């Protein structure tokens, strides 16, 4: 078991003929996740170098390959809204958006449609999802370093940052703690699945024994997770690292590394988020390395 990925995962890549799409295709196939088809408008009939067939339309790809149940979107930002809408209309239940720089208004409209149609969106700006040893969607964990970075085990990792998803997994792996799944939820202001959504999935996953969360300044997703913990919806232990305490010195509305990392006041500061999570029972890591130390303690205690 894992979340979002299993043995039945079959992927179509929208934007497969682009640089990001081609790399994701290569990487996923190498990791053993079947990419059944690609979609690039105007390039239907072509085949990629690994032999994947390219279609003009998602509906066409799904008709020819009815096993497709996941779409990975790698098209340029201005076309993401249309691409995701096309995937939703083709009844694909899981849509992972890798593209960065999607206008927030496009994301907002997309999330509204997805809610109405019951589709799950991960991202935009998601580095992808990996379930070590089982499969992956997106560009997370390159084949050169992936084997050293990720390993199978009990930690469910949720991260706003793609780089930190790998960094944290690497630290856990070095400490002998594997991961059930690692999900890059993206650092945009609006995202399809937030920390609470994924924590609820990990909560139901028998392989996951603890959650590791990387959050940062901006927005309230971390606070919503804390609320869910306090209300008893999340009972598995949570270790959280929050970035951006230093931002208190910067003027409000400054945008830091990610589009959603906007300096503000109150509930959107790193300090408040860490406090809210701690109050809700989470363990707050001070540095990335701390995560492994805390996780070790939690897992050791639980075994007894």
């Amino acid at each position, binding site marked *: 078991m894992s979340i979002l990925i299993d043995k039945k995962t079959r992927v179509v890549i929208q934007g497969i003929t682009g640089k990001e799409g081609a790399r994701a295709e290569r990487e996923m196939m190498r990791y053993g996740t079947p990419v059944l088809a690609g979609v690039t408008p105007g390039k239907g009939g072509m085949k990629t170098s690994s032999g994947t067939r390219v279609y003009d339309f998602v509906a066409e790809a799904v008709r020819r390959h009815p096993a497709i149940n996941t779409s990975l979107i790698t098209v340029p930002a201005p076309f993401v809204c249309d691409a995701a809408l096309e995937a939703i209309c083709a009844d694909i239940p899981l849509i992972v958006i890798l593209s960065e720089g999607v206008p927030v208004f496009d994301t907002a409209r997309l999330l509204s449609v997805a809610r109405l149609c019951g589709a799950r969106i991960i991202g935009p700006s998601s580095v992808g999802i990996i379930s070590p040893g089982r499969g992956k969607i997106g560009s997370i964990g390159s084949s050169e370093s992936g084997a050293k970075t990720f390993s199978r085990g009990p930690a469910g990792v949720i991260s706003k940052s793609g780089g930190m998803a790998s960094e944290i997994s690497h630290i856990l792996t070095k400490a002998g703690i594997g991961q059930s799944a690692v999900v890059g939820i993206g650092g945009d202001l609006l995202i399809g699945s937030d920390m609470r959504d994924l924590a609820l999935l990990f909560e139901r996953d028998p392989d996951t024994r603890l959650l590791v969360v990387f959050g940062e300044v901006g927005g309230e997703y971390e606070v919503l997770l804390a609320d869910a913990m306090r209300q008893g919806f999340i009972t598995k232990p949570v270790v959280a690292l929050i970035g951006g305490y*230093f931002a208190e010195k910067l003027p409000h509305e400054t945008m830091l590394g990610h589009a959603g990392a906007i300096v503000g006041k109150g509930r959107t500061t790193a300090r408040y988020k860490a406090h809210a999570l701690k109050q809700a029972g989470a363990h707050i890591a001070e540095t990335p390395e701390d995560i492994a130390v805390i996780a070790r303690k939690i897992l050791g205690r639980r075994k007894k």
Partner: protein
Amino acid sequence: MKLYEYQGKKLFKTYGIAVPKSERISPGKKRVSLRAPFFLKSQVLSGARKKHGGIVRVVRASEFRKASARLFVNAIGGERPRHLLAEEEVRCARELYISISYDTRTRSPVLVVSRRGGSRILPAVVFPIDPLFGLPDFTVRAAVAALEIPSGGHVSSVMHSLWELFSREHALVVEINPLFYFPDGRCVAGDAKVIIDPAHGAPEARRILPLGGDIAVLASGGGASLVNLDVLMKCGGRPAVYSEYSGNPSADVVRDLTKRVLSRPGLKGCWVVGGRANFTDIFETMRGFVEGLRRTSPRPTYPIVIRRDGPRQEEAFAFLRSAAKKYGYDLAMFGSETPMSESAKIIVARAYTQ
């Protein structure tokens, strides 16, 4: 991208939202066509202008030159105004608050209103907006009711106009605080805060945010850069700037950023830090870094600590070693066997003991 008040008000006018009579003032301007008394408002991006002396009431026209000269030299939040806005004084019955922005709780746009705006704003009421349907009448009616004003005035049309502006201009925030509300139902926007989605406009240049310290930081990774600055400060380091380069930047991009960051005065050290990259070409970025170093004058003699790992790391480190020898840089390099937080301690120790 945040707009200045005068730019925001120009947009307001285009969308049919009334604004006070005003005139934009450039430095050296001797007189204003507005009749006194009027307000002079510093055009800076920082909020809380009133608190920092950025808004002055001019009672007699003869006071204008002195007042404007003072405002032009008054930096607010580190920023000096390039323009002032002279604006007629509005005498009104009430000051309301209206804004549209995004809320991560509802993951949608929201209309936010408060029956008392200004600097001592009362708790606001929040109405989610479904972007597929736009701002519906019933929501506007509910918002007007929450403002505790009679229906039928101009406030509802201001809300509709604000939504038009928000959705068509790809704004992240549009805020009117205060919205002057007259007893006859008319409204005038007293201020304008408009932030446009950077994803919609042209990409912004890589920004360097000053933090007042003496260790130059070149960080990669949107998330890692935040964590690393936190850790640096926890170790007693004083970062000079926040700057970040993510993705797979070309050597030229890194060179220019390096040069800009290292040209700051009073530096005691430089920390190049990033996680274990999946796809970033470390050799390319380090080549750019060395190019940037070479173009920095005077030649950096302070300690430089690099913590980076990923594709072509060994090549990159060999290149750095030879560059350090050739040009005489005090350079120490670490890969992912050294935790990022450990390298923070190293740069702090080296920077502050020399």
